[in-house]
């Protein structure tokens, strides 16, 4: 899984064995401070891209495999992606990684990369791209996380936009700490980027962002995942710190 919400390479302990390492600085899936299992000097190939000497955190990702009913070997996050411009083409069902130079210019543009229509600057919250959006005219900060299917919205910080969140139901969630809790699931309306691109309503859950904000050393109002990314064609360029919006393949009358 290409996961812009993860720090680097994360391997699934269901398929890989790691060795314990308490000293390793870790931001990833399980949050900072947990005792970790680590796998060193891995080689990973994605199509014709080869990465060598990659250290990976080994974490149990069986819940994703169970929920999605697919084999997940691991997560590919920031440190492997930061030398590329990554385009998420959910319509075409492909992700393209274009290598960039030190200034962030794509070295060898691929023919199928569609024209860039607009761009949005982002900052990095440790390793997650953070953008400013407007929700019904109220400015909010969201992290872009391709590993999240549903958007997340901080419950306490969303009072001023709660009218734009229409709850549908509750979801019973057994957290990683084993505790069961209810989260409110609904749809978020009137979110726009660059003040001119209005998103359709998006599946969103209200949660407590405190732990995530510690991991991302940020003060995020929420996380935008697949629900946000999939209708558009976005590219993320970490060197230029730009989120590009590509031209959809539409010929207008």
């Amino acid at each position, binding site marked *: 899984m290409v996961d812009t*919400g993860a720090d680097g390479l994360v391997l699934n302990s269901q398929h890989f064995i790691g060795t314990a390492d308490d000293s390793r600085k870790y931001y990833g*899936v*399980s949050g900072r401070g947990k005792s970790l299992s680590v796998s060193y000097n891995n080689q990973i190939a994605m199509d014709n891209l080869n990465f060598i000497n990659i250290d990976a955190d080994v974490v149990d990702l069986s*819940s*994703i495999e169970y*929920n*999605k*009913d*697919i084999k997940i070997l691991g997560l590919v996050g920031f440190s492997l992606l930061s030398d590329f411009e990554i385009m998420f083409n*959910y*319509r075409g*069902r492909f992700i393209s990684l274009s290598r960039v130079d030190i200034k962030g210019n794509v070295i060898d543009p691929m*023919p199928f990369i569609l024209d860039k229509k607009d761009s949005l600057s982002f900052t990095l919250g440790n390793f997650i791209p953070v953008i400013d959006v407007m929700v019904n005219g109220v400015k909010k900060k969201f992290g872009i*996380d391709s*590993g999240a*299917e*549903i958007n*997340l919205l901080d*419950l306490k910080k969303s009072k001023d936009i*709660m009218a734009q969140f229409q*709850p*549908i*139901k*509750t979801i*019973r*969630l*057994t*957290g*990683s*700490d084993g*505790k069961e809790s*209810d*989260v*409110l*699931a*609904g*749809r978020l309306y009137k979110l726009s980027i660059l003040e*001119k*691109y*209005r998103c*359709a309503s998006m*599946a969103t*859950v*209200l*949660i*407590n962002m*405190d*732990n*995530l904000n510690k991991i991302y050393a940020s003060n995020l109002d929420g*996380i935008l*995942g697949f629900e946000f990314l*999939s*209708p*558009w064609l976005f590219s993320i360029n970490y060197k230029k710190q730009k989120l590009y919006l590509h*031209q959809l*393949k*539409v*010929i*207008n*009358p």
Partner: protein
Amino acid sequence: MYKFLLLLNIVLQCNLLIAQETPFSQCEINGDDVYIKFHESCINSKDESCIALAEFKDFDLASVIKSGLFTLWERDGWTLQKIGSHSYQLHKKLIQFDKTFNLEDKFKIDMSHWNYPLSEKLAQGSSDIIDEPAKISSAGNIEFILKGWQKAKKVILSGSFNNWDENAIKLIRVGDKWKIRLKMAPGIYEYKFIVDGEWMHDPANAFMVQNQHFTYNSILVVGKDVQFYLKGYSDAKKVALSGSFNNWDKKGVSCIKTKDGWKVTQKLPPGKHFYKFIIDGQHWIIDPSNQLQERDEEGNVNSVIIIH
């Protein structure tokens, strides 16, 4: 007068009956409080209108209500009140939802919760989940047919669904046709046939897009049926639907005239789609009943529909 009152009485009683028997559930946030209002027929129901109550099956609300002691009942912070003859509401303080959420918890929430009652099917292990966009299968959902070309030795189907593989999908000759049936995941695909090495678009498919070689690729939309309605325009001779799903085809998909407007069913895959209605082949209009619109880079406003 008496007859009128009797009729009115019958209508009111019928309405009341319908109101009482119609299952409904609604989740709402009101200030610091969360309410789930529901009709008692929603308890344990899989009806889509009962979605707000979907996660309360193990609460055994039917027994709680039957006992009559629901005013004393409390579970996981939820309390229960009666708000109508057959209607109730669950209540919980909004702040009680403010629980620790760890990063890996994001993997535990997926779209199935929004696709009720589809989630019931998925939970039972539906075979509809396809891990590759196209797979040869006699029980597949899409059949490709190329009529004629009886003297051809080999016909291949190639498209965006298999990275334009020039060998993988061979059509089988049946009488005067070449055929292959595939199990395809929802999506918008481009494809071509390769007849004895020669690339050609599908002559039976009017929807095409020009490619970088200045020839055409055929477009296939695999998705769920979506109904489009246009109210009025009874004087129009023809109305068509066109959008990003058919590359803004100028003819569009013909709509059928109804008593009070026009309608058409179009297959659409999950995703965001732009569309307009074409009146009498000339006037392109946005859908007046759809408030979701988006301006493109040329300043044109299009109606937007999102399919989940």
